[in-house]
């Protein structure tokens, strides 16, 4: 059995019904604006209740099982979260195991998402920091109390380390496993003592990941590896254009394909159910479907950008405004005017979307997937299956990447799995598999975006005004969360990173037009920052050059009120041996610095640009994430952010031709490969500030640091992504 429960739990975890008792009603107070959430909830994070029962079990065999409420899609949060609890508990790291939490928002909500259980916005460690410390500390005090009772000694004389409780004066000691069962019945201390940083033994140390062995011997179970008794596989023929619907279909030939068991219509298309994946794919090839395009998006991406360009002539909705930039620009000594465009991007996680669903003997449903938005996913599937949310049990697995794709406000692929299962008559367990082509052409892209900026400096080079307009489709408008997080038509996940720029710009306006195309869009590793940071950091670079000031010094002069940003910028520049002078012809350094999700990252890129080829030789990064819970995982996330984002900087784009996606697999949308990977050095700022995340913040600065390095190397200013030197004339 998968995820078999270990015996001898510390305190038994009470079974609770989910908050969402109504059948799939998405009536939830939702807060996904990390900044607002942090501002509102930040001070309260430390006030979280101590809940050792929810987060740790200690077995008689001395194993310490930490319950992980988040999806681990590679970012290493399983290791980080376990580290936090284990350190407070005094656990022996070799005894620490993890298991993924069930869907239960009363226990496992993300404190930065309100009552929603979900993973995103680089919040896993940030929202769990006090919660897991308190849980670990409470469990430690319960074990100490049990030992004091048994040994009839003052609890103040008891110490805990490495899974052992000791009474120094008498020399008595006991393993956690010997005390746990009795300790579990003791009252939970409401305010356990949290360790001083000087007492930490795991936090801040480089300790091995907990998933390294299972992920190197083939035993780690991903959703695609779920095998239930009598399981069958489904693939769905979906419309080639977003928004189209099935007009009619002919399944006669498909049904004749060996292994095909059934063909059923679902809201998203026509599902072919077969004995195995190969037969399902062959069956789908034999299927004939006529699509009704009357409600479909039929434009090409060029046409959508052309519409954006036209709309950018107007001021848009005001997301941010101070001073009068229009007037200031009239008095400027120099004005830089620039347009930036960004394509749609697919997440293209290595494990394509998939989920397995089966009906249990008790009439409930068991679903196996990489759940990233449990509360929404559970409610959405329950509504389709016609049961209350608590009747849909979610079993989380390791996820083969996500980069945001597995968390959709519509729970899209899970809703489809439920619909296929229902249409199939709910007989055998069904594994819905999206092929690579399905996954890539399936929408929910990083939005295509256009920015237009006019910025001016005075005779001394100081910024006097900055007038900024962007056009892009909101992720939240049209989603169930629109009413909660879109204010005055402005989606904070669209404008973050620019409307709240930390640069001291005396006169500034940020206007936004919401895109209206029928292409589903979604957060893509670092969300709005994927484009806003690029625009801000390339523009600042342009102004520094216009002012004839070193670009690091220029940034620092505008960041006097932003010490953590200045700190990482100085550190990265120092470690990279910053110099604005080209090292050799065609080779240059570029810099960028940005805050996202409460974490601060600067990068210096060393780039060779010759003819049309851009080669990134080296990236030096400095990061400030508060307390570095696991420095090696932090370094890995920044190295990975470079590898992940590099192909988006250099070549990736999803394009539409008459509404049809043109890229279907890794040949046309090619991720970074080994031979292109630059050397990456990561320097971590020591800190005792409460930790923030690092899954995403390495991404936003890569593009602008490379674009600025290309300028240093060639004098050519590339403003749009992907960077393309082939058609650009010298600046």
């Amino acid at each position: 059995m998968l995820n078999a429960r270990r015996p001898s739990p510390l305190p038994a975890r009470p079974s609770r019904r989910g908050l969402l008792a109504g059948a799939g009603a998405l009536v939830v107070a939702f807060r996904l604006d990390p900044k607002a959430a942090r501002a509102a909830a930040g001070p309260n994070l430390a006030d979280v209740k101590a809940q050792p029962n929810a987060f740790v079990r200690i077995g008689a065999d001395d194993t310490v099982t930490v319950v992980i409420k988040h999806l681990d899609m590679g970012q290493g949060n399983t290791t980080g979260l376990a580290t936090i609890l284990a350190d407070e508990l005094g656990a022996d790291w070799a005894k620490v195991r993890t298991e993924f939490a069930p869907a239960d928002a009363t226990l496992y909500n993300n404190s930065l998402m309100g009552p929603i259980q979900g993973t995103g916005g680089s919040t896993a460690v940030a929202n769990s920091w006090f919660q897991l410390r308190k849980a670990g500390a409470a469990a430690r005090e319960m074990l100490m109390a049990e030992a004091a009772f048994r040994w009839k000694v003052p609890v103040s004389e008891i110490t805990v380390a490495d899974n052992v409780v000791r009474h120094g004066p008498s020399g008595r000691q006991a393993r956690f496993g010997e005390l746990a069962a009795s300790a579990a019945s003791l009252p939970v201390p409401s305010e356990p003592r949290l360790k001083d940083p000087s007492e930490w033994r795991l936090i801040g140390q480089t300790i091995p990941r907990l998933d390294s062995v299972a992920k190197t011997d083939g035993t780690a179970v991903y959703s695609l590896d779920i095998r239930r008794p009598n399981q069958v596989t489904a693939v769905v023929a979906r419309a080639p254009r977003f928004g189209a619907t099935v007009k009619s279909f002919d399944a006669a030939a498909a049904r004749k394909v060996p292994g095909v068991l059934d063909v059923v219509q679902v809201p998203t298309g026509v599902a072919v159910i077969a004995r195995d994946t190969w037969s399902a794919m062959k069956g789908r090839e034999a299927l004939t479907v006529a699509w009704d395009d009357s409600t479909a998006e039929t434009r090409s991406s060029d046409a959508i950008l052309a519409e954006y360009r036209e709309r950018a002539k107007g001021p848009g909705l005001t997301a941010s405004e101070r001073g009068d930039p229009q007037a200031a620009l009239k008095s400027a000594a120099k004005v830089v005017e620039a347009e930036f465009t960004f394509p749609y991007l697919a997440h293209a996680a290595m494990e394509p979307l998939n989920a397995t669903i089966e009906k249990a003997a008790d009439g409930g449903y068991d679903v196996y997937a990489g759940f990233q938005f449990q509360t929404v996913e559970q409610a959405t599937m329950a509504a389709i299956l016609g049961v209350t949310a608590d009747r849909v049990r979610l079993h989380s697995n390791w996820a083969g990447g996500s980069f945001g794709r597995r968390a959709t406000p519509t729970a899209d692929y899970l809703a489809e799995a439920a619909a296929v299962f229902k249409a199939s008559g709910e007989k055998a367990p069904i594994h819905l598999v999206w092929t690579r082509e399905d996954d890539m052409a399936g929408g929910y892209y990083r939005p295509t975006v256009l920015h237009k900026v006019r910025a001016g400096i005075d005779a001394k080079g100081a910024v006097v005004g900055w007038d900024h307009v962007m056009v892009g489709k909101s992720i939240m408008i049209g989603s169930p969360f629109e009413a909660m997080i879109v204010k005055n038509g402005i989606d904070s996940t669209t404008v973050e990173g620019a409307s709240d720029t930390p640069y001291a710009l005396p006169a500034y306006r940020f206007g936004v037009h919401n895109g209206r195309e029928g292409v589903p869009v979604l957060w893509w590793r670092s969300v709005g920052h994927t484009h806003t940071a690029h625009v801000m950091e390339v523009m600042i670079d342009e102004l520094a050059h216009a002012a004839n000031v070193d670009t690091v010094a220029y940034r620092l002069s505008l960041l006097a009120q932003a010490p953590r940003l200045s700190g990482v910028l100085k550190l990265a520049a120092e470690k990279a041996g910053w110099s604005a002078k080209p090292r050799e012809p065609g080779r240059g350094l570029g810099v960028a610095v940005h805050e996202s999700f409460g974490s601060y990252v600067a990068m210096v890129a060393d780039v060779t640009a010759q003819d049309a080829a851009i080669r990134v030789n080296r990236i030096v990064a400095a990061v400030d994430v508060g307390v570095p819970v696991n420095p090696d995982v932090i370094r890995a996330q920044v190295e990975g952010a470079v590898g992940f984002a590099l192909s988006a900087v250099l070549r990736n784009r999803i394009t539409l031709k008459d509404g049809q996606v043109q890229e279907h697999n890794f040949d046309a949308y090619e991720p970074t490969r080994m031979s292109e990977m630059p050397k990456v050095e990561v320097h971590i700022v020591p800190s005792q500030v409460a930790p923030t995340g690092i899954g995403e913040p390495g991404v936003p600065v890569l593009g602008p640091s490379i674009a600025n390095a290309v300028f240093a190397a060639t004098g050519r200013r590339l403003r749009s992504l992907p960077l393309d030197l082939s058609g650009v004339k010298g600046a």
Partner: protein
Amino acid sequence: MPKLTVNGVAHEIDADPDMPLLWVLRDRLDATGTKYGCGIAQCGACTVHLDGQPVRACQTKLGDVGTAQVTTIEGVNGRVADAVQAAWRKLDVVQCGYCQSGQIMSAIGLLAGNAKPSDSDIDGAMDGNICRCGTYQRIRAAIHEAARSLA
């Protein structure tokens, strides 16, 4: 009925000889350590060994395997395999881990024929294996580490 020897165990497989080895392994033998990533030999997630040589299982038809010995991540062993897996763990290479079965099978194939690969040898042997998490720096380091430990 086509026969197949996987990790030293012989199987009779009731499947179309055109079925890719990838799906035979995953859906007929429940050997799920070998991953599906693209189906067109662009990503290397499905890399297995045929008589010790790395191949893409998504492009290898069941009917073409013949008497060749199939080795997957679940069954790979020996001095080189142990060194590669140990290096992967020592350097904590993995992130999501989904591609790593294929990366490791390619790396074992490289080191089995080249005891001391240069960076450009590594580029040549590993460029067909995509890691979307971008763990390439550590994969490279782990291959060098494994080579050192085997020397």
